């Protein structure tokens, strides 16, 4: 038991992060607005919230539009239910920006915002409005939420799929760790010519490929939801697929040579090449070009913009947990391979 503490810890971390990661609610947000364009004059809009409590917080509810330095408040506001409200705005002829951001505030939800919620229609967009048309005083001091509960950020494109972060990224991190083990075992084989190291390198790469498949599958589903396609021609995505193919070639190469000593030596040399190529394809090349994927091409990844403290509390333990599970599976395969080798040796002795 004392030797296996890390296995127990990994299992507990994976289960805990799975339960909290899937069950914790999303923060209140604005799901959609209708219509999506605002024209000069009177405009009635319907705002649909997500996990919101518009009716409960109706007393101090306020809604406003922000356009550049200008604020626009509705002259009529009615709450349909907790998730729907209707507001009527009088839109001026001149604006500073082509898009209007929508804000809804009450004491139950705090301030929820939808960036570029509405687009202007036939309005005159000017560089700057005079002071008296900016109307900053139409918004009262925004109410603060009564009790902040544990939730995940409600981002307009990601929505509920934001939870996939706890599975998609740890799968890739675990894959990289296991491929790192595989590389280390291959180097050890080249130094000592011990077949046990070759078997360990091969086992680590096999488990790494399983996690890579999990990373590709979870990423593909995420891409379908956020970008609208199962696969887009993006340097990060293509790089990940190439990295996996490079490692598949490692197994093809090893199985194509009949002499096990030769296969092990060839495989070990190729493994070093495969690891370097995978790192180039996944970590280096995508950072040198524009990319849709977070963390490359100037997109933020683990920054304050898209990973808040609540998410970090689940994300880092999930990474440690899945890495532990990956190493556990690899260790089991290593031990099984060692037993098989011992049995073969005994039979030949």
């Amino acid at each position, binding site marked *: 038991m004392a030797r*296996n503490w890390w*296995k127990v810890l990994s*299992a507990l971390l*994976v*289960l805990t992060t*799975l*339960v909290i990661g*899937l*069950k914790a609610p999303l923060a209140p947000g604005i*799901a*959609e607005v209708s219509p999506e364009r605002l024209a000069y004059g009177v405009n009635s809009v319907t705002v649909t919230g997500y996990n919101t409590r518009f009716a409960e917080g109706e007393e101090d509810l306020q809604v406003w539009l922000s356009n550049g330095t200008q604020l626009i408040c509705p002259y009529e506001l009615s709450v349909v239910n907790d998730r729907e409200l209707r507001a009527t705005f009088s839109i001026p002829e001149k604006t500073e920006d082509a898009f209007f951001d929508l804000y809804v505030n009450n004491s139950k939800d705090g301030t929820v915002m939808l960036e570029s919620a509405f687009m202007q229609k036939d309005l005159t967009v000017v560089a700057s409005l005079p002071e008296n048309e900016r109307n900053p005083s139409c918004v009262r001091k925004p109410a603060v939420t009564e009790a902040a509960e544990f939730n995940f950020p409600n981002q307009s494109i990601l*929505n*509920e799929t934001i939870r996939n972060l706890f599975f998609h990224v740890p799968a890739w991190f675990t894959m990289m760790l296991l491929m790192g083990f595989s590389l280390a075992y291959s180097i050890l084989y080249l130094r000592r010519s011990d077949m046990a190291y070759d078997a360990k390198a091969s086992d680590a790469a096999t488990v790494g490929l399983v996690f890579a498949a999990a990373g590709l*599958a979870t990423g593909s*589903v995420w891409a*379908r*939801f956020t970008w609208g396609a199962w696969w887009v021609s993006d340097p990060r995505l293509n790089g990940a697929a190439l990295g996996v193919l490079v490692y598949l070639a490692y197994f093809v190469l090893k199985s194509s040579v009949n002499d096990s000593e030769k296969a092990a030596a060839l495989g070990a040399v190729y493994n070093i090449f495969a690891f370097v190529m995978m790192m180039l394809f996944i970590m280096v090349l995508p950072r040198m070009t524009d990319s849709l994927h977070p963390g490359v091409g100037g997109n933020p990844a683990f920054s304050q913009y898209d990973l808040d403290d609540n998410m970090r509390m689940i994300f880092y333990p999930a990474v440690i947990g899945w890495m532990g*599970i990956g190493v*556990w*599976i690899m260790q*089991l395969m290593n*031990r*099984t391979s060692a*037993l098989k080798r*011992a049995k073969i040796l*005994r039979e030949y002795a």
Partner: protein
Amino acid sequence: MLKHLRQFFVLFIAYLMTVSSALGQDRGFEDVMMDSGKLNVVFAVVVMLIVVMIGFLVYLDRRVSRMERQEKIKK
């Protein structure tokens, strides 16, 4: 190896079919799943799968340990 590949392929196709049918729904899909409580069933199945996976790992770990002990005795 081929047997494992076939199993993996069948599981992968089943996974793709399930996910694509879920994503083919309109925006209210998650609301329907949440409001009717069906999401809890999905959640329970996912947790159960992970629990079974960990249970299987524990079983394998114990079995391999036992075989290692037997191997030591034989030596």
